[in-house]
């Protein structure tokens, strides 16, 4: 058996939206060859989309809070000030360290960050080696520590190409009219030369190593596509209104030229690697190339990252890889586990990514170990005490400043260092938020705000995270401060207010706020999506459908909009279309449990029960708390697929999940408790009733009572029967509920006059007489309920006003469903509410 060989090629910011038309025109034949005999897909990026963090995630399979690379720069603790982020700050092993440990020879060229070069079994050339920041005709020293083994430096430095070496032959393919550029005034030509020279240097070194060393694994990182993008994407056709015609004509071909140049370089890598090599081409994020290109960038650190599109590229081609297929749901985190799998090595359980098992024709067995980080032995990493030479970092730092990623810190080293720490902390907060760890994220943001209370990024994130943590008052307080400070924020802040109302299940109020916001700001995708979500809540599906269609007309790669459209289509009865929209959403964003769930619902309606089960199972794998998906599975396995065992497995899990949790419907007699029980039943919840008390004229749809409840004060031994279900308990008996269970109490409130009136009628008594003493007793009972609620930590209580429930069923059912962790099918639940039953209404 021959040895496995893998080449991992990193093209920073490469985007299918630019590549596809070029491939269609036959202008990227090398990549096209790999695409045709391999699998391709989008590679979902991570937040924040900053390259050193992302490329380290690609190389480790871990998010930045685990791998420790948190930005472009870091404080230089030896010389003061700052330095470009160094590989010595990485807290975990990269794929090449794991391969080294397992005896494979690796060459790594230019990875960001990889300085100082690690002592691996092979050659590592750091990202600082090719940086050319010295003037022409002056010495171009090699950055110390940028090559391992150091003796390779002498050979490899001969393959560095200084920008001043390039001639018109290298420039004209990008800028045919370069002669018209006044280089004294226009630095763009020099910028192009520098980007191109550094890419060519990286490539020359990589090819030399491929030809002249033994290797099992090559990783080559090219940053040029990102740099061409930041400098020249604004000039790419179609011309944007704010771009002068002369500039457009001069620079319109640069980006496409850059892609074609990379394809030519890829062709050479393929040629040198040989047919038995697996190629993996990845980018860390995409780059907006159409109407989404921002006209200007705000003056904030890392602002150019706003030009990054959230999907990078993935193409894998080689032996045992499926041909001409698509891979869905891949993220940057999956690359390292997949490479390890190709070599037959296990991934670490501490890795955030997964093996892309669907890419293989014959999937090699994949296994996992606890962690590669805890194993003793030689991994080709730096010793812990290793530090970086900060002087050698200066050139790379200068480049980052020139590209606009960094503010020029000037001479004040302390200030620069403090700024760097601030940004690293801020980036960490965003990584934690991306893990839904909002409580940790807000801790960091609040700490940052203590030092810099006016920083708008921190304030906006504080609003977002407080909303996620249901700390609405805190969020509103910040909104108020910002409103007072700057009126221009007003519309954007209204969007946040609308989101708060949405979270509070007040869709009408949210709709009002979003509509007001829309008048004062461009209808951004995020605003339209929020509007669409509110229309769904309000069951205004036609309007939701229009909104999501509008979002998709502008950006057909918006997974959330596809999901919103799918939901609207599902409710409007366009079932096939809904399934297709859900699939589109999943294709763009695989880890999207609600999209899988609603696909499942559509497939049930299409009577594709096996496929529906697959969709529900996937949604549960991603979010085991989706009780509704499990209820669907029980029903389908039992009734449609006749797989009683599978149904039983899910029933058992559901019972286990619901163990110890009881939903109580309570209130005074005749306050609407029976109606609430009907709603819960119709919404899909299990209810505990013995039907001893039959329906009658007072409650024509039944009482949903359970006889044993009456004995609650002296016997609660039967209460386990109610676990995971809803049980009706009148207000007077609530205090007898034992503490060993967790209760969610839906307490029905109704106008006291209506209650008494209804009771009198039911008892056949005179309805015109009002028994004041009874009313006073009931009032006391309500106060007792509140006291009981406040002292019982195992009780969560939601008041529902009966009259309001009848008048505003949508908002109330939303609120109830939120309270019950979305166990209800809202549409079915709402159908129960019959205004005709609201007979005893006092106006």
């Amino acid at each position, binding site marked *: 058996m021959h040895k496995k060989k893998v080449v991992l090629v990193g093209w920073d910011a490469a985007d299918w939206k630019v590549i596809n038309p070029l491939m269609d025109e036959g202008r990227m034949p090398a990549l096209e060859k790999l695409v045709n005999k391999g699998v391709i897909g989008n590679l979902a990026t991570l937040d924040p989309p900053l390259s050193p963090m992302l490329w380290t995630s690609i190389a480790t399979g871990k998010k930045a809070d685990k791998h420790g690379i948190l930005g472009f720069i870091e404080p230089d603790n030896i010389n003061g000030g700052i330095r470009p982020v160094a590989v010595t700050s990485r807290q975990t092993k990269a794929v090449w360290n794991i391969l080294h440990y397992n005896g494979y020879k690796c060459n790594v060229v230019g990875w960001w960050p990889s300085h100082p070069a690690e002592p691996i079994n092979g050659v590592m050339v750091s990202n600082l080696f090719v940086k050319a920041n010295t003037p022409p005709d002056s010495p171009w020293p090699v950055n110390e520590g940028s090559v391992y083994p150091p003796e390779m430096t002498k050979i490899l430095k001969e393959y560095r190409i200084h920008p001043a070496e390039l001639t018109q*032959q290298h420039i004209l*393919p990008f800028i045919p009219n370069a002669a018209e550029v006044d280089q004294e005034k226009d630095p763009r030509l020099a910028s192009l030369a520098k980007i191109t020279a550094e890419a060519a240097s990286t490539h020359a070194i990589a*090819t030399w190593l491929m030809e002249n060393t033994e290797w099992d694994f090559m990783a080559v990182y090219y940053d040029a596509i990102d740099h061409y993008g930041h400098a020249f994407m604004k000039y790419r056709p179609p011309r944007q209104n704010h771009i002068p015609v002369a500039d457009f004509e001069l620079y319109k071909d640069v980006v496409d030229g850059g892609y074609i140049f990379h394809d*030519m*370089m890829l*062709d050479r890598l393929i040629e*040198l690697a040989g047919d038995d090599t697996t190629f993996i081409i990845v980018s860390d994020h995409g780059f907006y190339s159409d109407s989404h290109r921002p006209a200007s960038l705000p003056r904030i650190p890392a602002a150019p990252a706003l030009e990054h599109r959230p999907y990078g590229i993935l193409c894998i081609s080689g032996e045992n890889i499926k041909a001409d297929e698509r891979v869905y749901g891949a993220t940057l985190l999956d690359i390292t586990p997949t490479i390890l799998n190709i070599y037959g090595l296990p991934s670490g359980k501490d890795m955030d990514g997964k093996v892309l098992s669907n890419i293989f024709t014959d999937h090699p067995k994949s296994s996992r170990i606890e962690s590669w980080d805890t194993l003793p032995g030689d991994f080709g990493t730096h010793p812990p005490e290793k530090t970086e030479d900060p002087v050698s970092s200066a050139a790379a730092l200068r480049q980052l400043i020139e590209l606009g990623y960094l503010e020029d810190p000037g001479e004040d080293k302390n200030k620069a260092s403090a700024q760097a720490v601030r940004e690293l902390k801020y980036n960490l907060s965003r990584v934690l938020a991306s893990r839904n760890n909002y409580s940790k994220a807000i801790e960091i943001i609040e700490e940052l705000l203590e030092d810099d209370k006016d920083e708008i990024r921190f304030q906006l994130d504080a609003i977002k995270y407080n909303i996620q943590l249901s700390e609405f008052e805190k969020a509103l307080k910040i909104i108020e401060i910002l409103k007072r400070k700057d009126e221009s924020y007003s519309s954007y802040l209204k969007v946040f207010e609308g989101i708060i109302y949405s979270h509070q299940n007040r869709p009408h109020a949210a709709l009002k706020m979003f509509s007001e916001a829309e008048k004062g700001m461009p209808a951004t995708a995020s605003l339209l999506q929020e509007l669409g979500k509110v229309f769904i809540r309000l069951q205004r599906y036609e309007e939701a459908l229009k909104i999501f269609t509008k979002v998709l007309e502008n950006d057909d790669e918006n997974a959330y909009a596809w999901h919103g459209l799918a939901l609207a289509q599902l409710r409007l009865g366009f079932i096939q279309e809904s399934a297709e929209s859900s699939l589109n959403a999943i294709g763009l964003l695989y880890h999207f449990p609600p999209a899988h769930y609603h696909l499942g619902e559509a497939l049930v309606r299409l009577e594709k029960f096996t496929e529906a089960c697959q969709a529900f199972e996937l949604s549960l794998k991603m979010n085991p708390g989706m009780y509704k998906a499990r209820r669907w599975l029980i029903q389908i396995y039992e009734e449609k697929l006749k797989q009683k065992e599978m149904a039983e497995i899910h029933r058992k899990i559901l019972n286990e999940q619901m163990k110890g949790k009881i939903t109580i419907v309570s209130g005074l007699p005749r306050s609407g408790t029976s109606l609430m029980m009907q709603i819960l039943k119709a919404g899909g919840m299990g209810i505990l009733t013995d039907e001893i008390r039959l329906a009658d004229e007072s409650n024509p749809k039944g009482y949903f009572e359970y006889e044993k409840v009456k004995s609650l004060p002296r016997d609660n031994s039967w209460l386990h029967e109610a676990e995971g279900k809803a049980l009706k308990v009148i207000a007077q008996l609530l205090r007898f509920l034992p503490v060993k269970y967790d209760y969610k109490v839906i307490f029905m409130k109704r106008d006291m006059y209506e209650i008494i009136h209804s009771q009198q009628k039911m008892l056949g008594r005179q309805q015109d007489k009002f028994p004041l003493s009874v009313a006073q007793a009931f009032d006391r009972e309500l106060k007792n309920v509140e006291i009981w609620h406040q002292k019982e930590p195992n009780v969560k209580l939601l008041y529902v006003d009966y009259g309001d429930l009848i008048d505003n069923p949508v908002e109330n059912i939303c609120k109830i469903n939120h309270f019950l962790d979305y166990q209800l099918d809202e549409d079915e639940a709402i159908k129960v509410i019959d205004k005709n039953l609201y007979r005893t209404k006092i106006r």
Partner: protein
Amino acid sequence: MTERQEYQSDKITIRDKQTGQPVEIHPEGSLGLLALGAVGVKAWREARKKARQNSNMSEKGTEKLH
């Protein structure tokens, strides 16, 4: 850019992939040579060096004539 040349390396002789004939390396270089990597860079620099030497010799020859 669209009609790219294809090369094959044979030490420092660059050959056309289709015809197998040696390709003349222009001292000004090309993106194609850069894309060839180490071999292309080396060939380009040799061609440049040779061109410079020829230019120097030619200048010296002219001096002698005068």
